[in-house]
């Protein structure tokens, strides 16, 4: 029978080994993003995949989130006659939290799984070995373009999601809840501060990095054929989602804790 202390020790050592491997992987990914040769075609392709092709689903999510948020805040705030806070809470909620977090989680589900599956398949079919024999560094060709695309595209996606989300709130506020359109917009802009938007965009850049990192990392170290690739895709989504929610807390604390 396995000694429970030994088992705990082994799990802890495995965790440390995985953390070390991930740190080295992230370091290499960042380092090679700044070292030539650059692969503009690969970067462009990843920007399209992460940014442009995620736009419809992120936009739709932001629209309905803004609409639901306006409804819920109205219902809640009407209990103590604070309905006028709807516009300000919607805009702060969307820009600070819901825009980046929901966009991050959705792109994690859509992109990091696909990334892990693609790189994992390349690993098990020896395409990564082929890259190396063709004098091409896989970190430069596969990882760096994904990290660059993740870090640059997520803030853009979130900026669009912020606008659509606030517009969703405006639609419900003015069409369903009876707010005056001009007053709603006035309230929105009066209570919106630069740091609300900036903190959301910083979060988005960090989430973009996490999404690309976990997709590439899980794919790169996948093994065991189709089953291994499937496991890598699942792990990429799960780890990226958990890391997004965890770092969200710390970035929020960094920006707003007094």
């Amino acid at each position: 029978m396995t000694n429970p202390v030994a088992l705990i020790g082994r799990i802890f050592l495995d965790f440390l080994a995985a953390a070390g491997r991930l740190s080295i992987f992230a370091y290499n990914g960042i380092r090679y993003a700044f070292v030539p040769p650059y692969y503009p075609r690969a970067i462009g392709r990843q920007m399209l995949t992460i940014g442009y092709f995620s736009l419809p689903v992120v936009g739709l999510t932001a629209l309905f989130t803004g609409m639901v948020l306006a409804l819920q805040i109205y219902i809640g705030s009407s209990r103590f006659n604070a309905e006028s806070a709807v516009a300000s809470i919607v805009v702060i909620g969307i820009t600070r939290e819901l825009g980046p977090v929901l966009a991050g989680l959705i792109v994690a589900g859509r992109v990091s799984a696909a990334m892990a599956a693609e790189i994992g398949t390349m690993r098990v079919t020896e395409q990564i070995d082929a890259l190396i024999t063709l004098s091409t560094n896989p970190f430069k060709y596969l990882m760096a373009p994904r990290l660059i695309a993740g870090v640059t595209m997520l803030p853009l996606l979130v900026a669009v999601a912020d606008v659509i989300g606030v517009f969703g709130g405006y639609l419900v506020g003015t069409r369903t809840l009876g707010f005056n359109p001009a007053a709603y917009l006035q309230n929105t802009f009066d209570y919106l501060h630069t740091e609300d938007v900036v903190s959301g965009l910083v979060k988005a850049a960090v989430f973009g990095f996490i999404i690309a990192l976990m997709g590439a990392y899980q794919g790169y170290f996948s093994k065991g054929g189709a089953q291994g690739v499937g496991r890598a895709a699942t792990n990429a989504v799960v780890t990226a989602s958990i890391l997004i929610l965890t770092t969200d807390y710390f970035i929020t604390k960094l920006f707003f804790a007094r």
Partner: protein
Amino acid sequence: MTTVPKIELRDVHKGFGSKKVLDGIDLSVNAGESVVVIGGSGTGKSVMLKSILGLLRPERGSILVDGEEVVGIRGNARERVLRKFGMLFQGSALFDSLKVWENVAFGLINGQGMPRPKAKEVALTKLAEVGLGADVGELNPAELSGGMQKRVALARAIAAEPEIIFFDEPTTGLDPIMGDVINELIVSSVKKLGVTTLSITHDMASARKIADRIAMIFEGKIIWQGPASAIENSGNAYVDQFIHGRAEGPIRMQVRRP
């Protein structure tokens, strides 16, 4: 005057966990020579090739390419050594996301920095050399049969006109006629380029056709080597059993009987 072997392995050891795969391999390949290493599945053939390429790192021993130690070299030194190599992978390892001509031209564009239009010209010439038309160059690898994929992989391996080419099970998974076509192409390409080749296979028809010299690997060691013409009269019971495909003999398969 002694000539420096193109490739030389001295007492190379490599294992995975408790399993020893290479157990003190000694092998040398002279410039312009075609050496084929035969041996059963799991005897360490692929691990040997990957160790020479630096895809795996041996625990002990020395690997020399043109007299230069390559175990443990990194960065630019490794890239410089890898430029001497071309490789045809067992499963072809073509990049799914690129067109056929882009696969063939990959090393030229990304490894040597050749402009795309010039690289495309070279790629189409190489495709023609392996019997494929320019129309095939515009297809994706997934649209090709296994035999065509092998030919594309061969075109990719010779595109950058390397000094050394490795063939990893070049005829595996092909029908006998297509297998012979690939063998013919290998022989003609190699003669034309005057390169050094190291192949691994368990297809004896292939080995007889492409080898100047044959070596047999068993349990991580080279147990026999000699001219291809001497393989029938090797005087080695292991070699005799292997080349005649007999179940009975000194090589015992680990099969559990019910």
